[in-house]
């Protein structure tokens, strides 16, 4: 398969259960995912979405939910710039390693056109860095730039 794949690995001082909660609980995602709240029943085959101020930013279907080990969902961006690139897939693997958890994010089945790939390659390091800080220090990172970065990215297309 020649489609693009993005992989990001980090280690977080937390438990797999807390990390699972951070990935699936809207009150949590709002704090590190640039204010976006996630909602879903987290059952395979059900829908999920990320939304900010009532507008969906990302939506898709839960493919696998095996707490606190593995979460897989399809990914459709609602932004005009990469909406036409169709559906990709995100997998979170949570592996306890002693007192820390190894988190692997695999975003694959990405369109060769590369707009989504470019956006998510910029986005995941911010989201995961903020998630790690939130779980380790109790505070997410003060990253306000994504909206302007996103506008800049949109302006290029």
């Amino acid at each position, binding site marked *: 398969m020649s489609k693009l794949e993005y992989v*990001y*690995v*980090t*280690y*977080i*001082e937390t438990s797999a259960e807390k990390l699972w909660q951070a990935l699936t609980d809207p009150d949590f995602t709002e704090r590190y995912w640039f204010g976006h709240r996630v909602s879903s029943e987290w059952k395979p085959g059900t829908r999920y979405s990320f939304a900010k101020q009532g507008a969906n930013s990302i939506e898709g279907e839960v493919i696998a939910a095996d707490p606190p080990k593995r979460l897989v969902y399809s990914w459709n961006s609602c932004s005009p710039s990469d909406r036409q690139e169709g559906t990709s897939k995100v997998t979170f693997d949570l592996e306890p*390693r*002693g*007192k*820390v958890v*190894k988190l692997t994010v695999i975003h694959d089945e990405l369109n060769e056109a590369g707009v989504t790939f470019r956006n998510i390659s*910029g986005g995941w*390091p*911010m989201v995961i*860095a*903020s998630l*790690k*800080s939130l779980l*380790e*220090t109790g505070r997410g*990172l*003060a*990253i*306000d*730039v994504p909206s302007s970065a996103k506008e800049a990215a949109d302006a290029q297309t």
Partner: protein
Amino acid sequence: MRKPEFVYVTYIETTPEKLWEALTDPDFTERYWFGMRLRTDWKAGSTFEMVRGDGSVSDAGKVVECDPPRRLAYTFVNLSDKYKDDVPALATFTIEPFGRLVKLTLTHEGFAQGSKFFKGISGGWPAILSNLKSLLETGRTLDIPYAAFKAED
């Protein structure tokens, strides 16, 4: 076939100066780099070595660029037999202020085709840089098992 390249980006609540110190000061690296001390005078062209706790050298190469607190580049390769077919590959750290944070970008490139060393560093950097971020933000390093640092064959 594209040559292998490793890119890792993270955001750290710190200053460029502190991050620079963390990347270049052996007392700092020893704390988050699994006990490794960097030995060099940080002048372009100088030798660069990673020294284990017992004094043995694990990796060696040369300093390519040193522009504090913005850009640091050096080559290195692991000296063990396992990587005897590998050549020193170029690691470049770019430090950019990002509001109250610092954006750190690491690019590691120039690996031999089919490089085993590439697999090794791909497993190592996420552990090292996660630990570095934790140390700068919380004052403590993570208790990452050393096995995480090794390549998964």
